[in-house]
């Protein structure tokens, strides 16, 4: 059963208008960060949400947790529509939905010992008493390989390395035993050897805690290790979704094909590249029809007029592209 499902999720941010725009009665413009996204993640499964900057992947994650209010659409968590829950109800629910951000230095209070920061999460949700909480923190620190736990407990974030800090953030998220974890570029800032260590940790924790995960990243290669399925986003929409293997070996959407071919391969084999011209357009003026059409080498007349819908092309593989109609 789906633990989390979003239906036609939209998030528009109004663009600031100057006094002259107001006087001229110019219509208000919107940044369409997320523009009709649908997906679901079954309990215990992990979905990789892949896209470039401006694709709306981060906003999608934030809207699911209601850190941003959705403009339209539905968010269903464990069979319950949470789109309209009050702030207070949402706060209680966040125990079950945690998020891990890219920069641990920005998610940790620099003046709070890291052990206290983890303990704080328990306190807020009224779990355990003073001594049992401390014991739980030690146990969690050990679990994310931060040892000796008693020593790490007393450290401040600045006294830890980047990788260690991100482990603290993971520990803080998981100590609440959440059912859904949203990891937003959680390993992007780290060097390659440390990144692999953390991916391994996430891999293990996922199994151990039976986590459902939304893994948001710009790096397709890392999704292989922690995701069952991948959804590729472009300009606020999902253009392709399927199993990792299918997406990687047999990408259908021209954008996905470009994304995969553009990754520099650390080997001597010369890779065939398919690089579209230009850059992702501004999400204020979204192109008509298929959003990718101005950059797409295969574009047809219909692509400029009609927006393609996500359709099943193979088992468990959906694409939004007129080429497959």
């Amino acid at each position, binding site marked *: 059963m789906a633990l989390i499902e979003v239906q036609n999720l939209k998030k528009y941010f109004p663009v600031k208008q100057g006094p002259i725009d107001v006087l001229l009665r110019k219509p208000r413009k919107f940044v369409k960060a997320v523009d009709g996204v649908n997906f679901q993640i079954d309990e215990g499964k992990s979905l990789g949400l892949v896209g470039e900057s401006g694709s709306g992947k981060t906003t999608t994650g934030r809207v699911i947790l209601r850190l941003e209010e959705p403009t339209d659409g539905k968010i269903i968590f464990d069979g319950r529509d949470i789109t309209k829950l009050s702030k207070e109800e949402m706060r209680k629910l966040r125990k079950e939905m945690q998020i891990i951000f890219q920069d641990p230095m920005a998610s940790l209070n620099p003046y709070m010992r890291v052990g206290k920061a983890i303990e704080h999460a328990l306190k807020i949700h009224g779990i355990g008493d003073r001594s049992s909480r401390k014991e739980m923190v030690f146990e969690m620190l050990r679990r994310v390989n931060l040892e000796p736990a008693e020593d790490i407990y007393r450290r401040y974030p600045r006294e830890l390395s980047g990788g260690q800090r991100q482990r603290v953030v993971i520990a803080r998220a998981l100590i609440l035993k959440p059912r859904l974890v949203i990891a937003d570029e959680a390993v992007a800032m780290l060097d390659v050897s440390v990144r692999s260590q953390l991916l391994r940790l996430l891999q293990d924790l996922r199994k151990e805690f039976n986590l459902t995960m939304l893994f948001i990243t710009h790096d397709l290669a890392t999704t292989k290790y922690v995701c069952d399925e991948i959804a590729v986003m472009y300009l606020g929409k999902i253009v392709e979704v399927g199993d990792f293997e299918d997406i990687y070996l047999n990408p259908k959407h021209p954008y996905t094909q470009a994304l995969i071919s553009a990754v520099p391969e650390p080997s001597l084999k010369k890779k065939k590249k398919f*690089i579209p011209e230009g850059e992702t357009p501004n999400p204020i003026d979204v192109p008509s029809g298929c959003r990718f059409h101005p950059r797409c080498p295969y574009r047809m007349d219909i692509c400029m007029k009609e927006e393609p819908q996500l359709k099943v092309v193979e088992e468990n593989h959906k694409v939004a592209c007129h080429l497959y109609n």
Partner: protein
Amino acid sequence: MKVLELENVSVRYKTEEKTVNAVENVSFHLEKGETLGLVGESGCGKSTLGFSIMRLLPKGTKIDGSIKIEGTDISSLSDEEMRQIRGSKVAMIFQDPMTSLNPILRIEDHFVEMILTHRPELSKEDARELAAKALEDVGINRNRLRDYPFQFSGGMRQRVMIALSIVLNPAVLIADEPTTSLDVIVQAQIMELLEKLTKEHKTAMILITHDMGLVAEAADRIGVMYAGHLVELASKERIFTNPLHPYTVGLLRSIPNTDVNDKELRYIPGSPPDLSNPPEGCRFAPRCEKAMKICWEKEPPEFEIDGTRVKCWLYGGDQNGTD
């Protein structure tokens, strides 16, 4: 022809309480038109090395050894003489182009100021024409010369920076993580552009990056840095088919590959040492699975094996002290 020669270059920073040995005894040279990839993780000294070639490190930083650009030892130059060399003989592009461009100057002004500094004999008109050509070379329409930096996207800004850095045709270009802040498709466009331009102008380039994939595609030779040391230097082919230093081996192994059936994550345990208090002996020894007794005691010299330069005791002729 050697356009850049580094010999025993060491860089030391002094902070309030400690001295940091950011780079130690690095030697290499660059042939005309060649691309050297300098790879390593954060804090390995690769960017510091780039900055020391430009002599752009903060005052109080101590640089030992010699750095020669087209035969001129830059340590003997005055600040004014160095300014003459920067931009005309050696240029640098950075990760974030927005911090390298002045937000209140038009693109044109950046070019004109730079061109006239180095070639005062030119008229403003000539300088503008040169700038327009350089912009066209990087795929930007010449009428955008009158625009401001904020009117360009990230990828376009980096194109402007590239145009600025090559307009005077320097012999050496230092590209410090030039595509790190860009999306992967734009990165591919920029790398293609850099390769094309350096080939056309026969510019030698040092490509500083943490991304093994980038150097695999763009470099002729690769230098691997770890904790301030150049631990291995070899042709690209050698590095990828026969890496010698255990750190290089570990680094290559920990890169996520694209084999869908291989989901095992490999990594080098531990993290790099504190450079204000580096370990005695080999700096990689605490993380090295092949560490021997001597590795903990004595810093390895550089050995040469079939054209690869490697700083590791495994390749020392007589391994007395082997355990």
